[in-house]
């Protein structure tokens, strides 16, 4: 791995573990066992590292989020569950850059470029969730129309965006799979009232898995 990539990789890990605000370029250099001068040669400061990390994140998540807009994830009612699995995919991707969400307002205030990009991502999340809900509506999986549907989409976007922050405030550090699974479960909880009995099976499974996870994790 090139030094530049190693810096990005280590920075991301430190930001996620220790928090972005508490991590300095010196910490990053120490962790990598390189001189601050060497780090400075690649990045002129933490701003640049954050900017590049966010760019990576925006690119990756944008690709994931455009998938359901471009083409329905489920061809018919038989693979409706793919839409729910997709929510895992999105949450797992977000989790890799969770430091953004833990300290969102602070980061957005300090980095205007990140703020612009983050706004685009929220709109894209909304568009992706809307596209999914539209597909479900067309396939008669859910029954919610007009304002109700838009409200549902906004609630899901809100939940998706602030879930990590909420989860951390409430539970400190939980195993990632528990955080992610409950995040998806919360999203499904919002959809559940609009689901028919057939599709509720999946929701019940999710509930059971979550209960098992809580029992097995300390």
């Amino acid at each position, binding site marked *: 791995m090139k030094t530049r990539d190693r810096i990005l990789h280590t920075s991301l890990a430190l930001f996620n573990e220790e928090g972005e605000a508490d991590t300095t370029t010196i910490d990053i250099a120490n962790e990598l066992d390189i001189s601050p001068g060497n780090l400075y040669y690649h990045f002129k400061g933490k701003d640049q590292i954050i900017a590049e990390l966010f760019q990576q994140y925006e690119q990756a998540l944008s*690709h*994931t989020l*455009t*998938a359901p*807009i*471009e*083409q329905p*994830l489920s061809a018919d009612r038989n693979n409706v*569950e*793919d839409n729910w*699995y*997709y929510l*895992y*995919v999105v949450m*797992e991707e977000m989790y890799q850059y969770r430091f953004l969400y833990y300290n969102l307002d602070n980061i957005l205030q300090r980095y205007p470029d990140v703020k612009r990009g983050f*706004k*685009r991502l929220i*709109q*894209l999340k*909304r*568009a992706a969730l*809307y*596209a999914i809900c*539209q597909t479900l509506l067309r396939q008669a999986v859910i029954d919610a129309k*007009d304002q109700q549907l*838009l409200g549902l989409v906004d609630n899901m976007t809100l939940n998706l965006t602030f879930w990590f922050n909420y989860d951390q405030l409430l539970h400190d550090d939980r195993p990632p799979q528990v955080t992610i699974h409950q995040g998806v479960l919360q999203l499904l909880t919002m959809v559940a009232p609009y689901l028919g009995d057939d599709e509720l*099976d999946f929701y019940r*499974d999710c509930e*059971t*898995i979550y209960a*098992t996870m809580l029992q097995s994790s300390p």
Partner: protein
Amino acid sequence: MADEKSKVTDKASEIAKNIWLAGVGAYGKAVEDAQGRLEKVGKEPPKLFRELVKAGTALEDDAREVLETTVAARNSVEERINRVRENFHMQRPARIEDLNVLHKKVDQLTRKVDKLSKALAAQGIAKAPAARKTTAAKKSKAAVKTSASRPAAKKKAATKTTVKKTSTRKKASTTGKAATSKRKS
């Protein structure tokens, strides 16, 4: 090729438009428009492509970027969905359908084992009636363990044929019998 490209470019720009309109708040209408236009695209892509080119370089740039990555991204999303699905099926509790599938399998195996044990009993009477009968009886009792007892039964059949062929190796066949009965317990 041109058709293909304009189709994808159009899709991409629809996405961009959706997003933009979403921000403005004209959400529901935007998607309706987009769907309407998508339907049109199927009929007359070249015209729409020209329109898009006219629409401005900013949009065109966005579109091209998405065009290049869109296919790869789609694949990776599908792959990841598949991975989550597999993982999910390992974690979720069994449903009635799963149990039914398993029941059928067990039934099939039980039938096979019954056949095999009947065949064995019929052939075994001549050679070593006492030993065979007890193993057959055990087998039907252990019907629940069908998957475990089936390979054992097969092996027994195999040892039998070798016994027939080589009369000098009777001792070997008895040790084989011992081994199979051990395996069952």
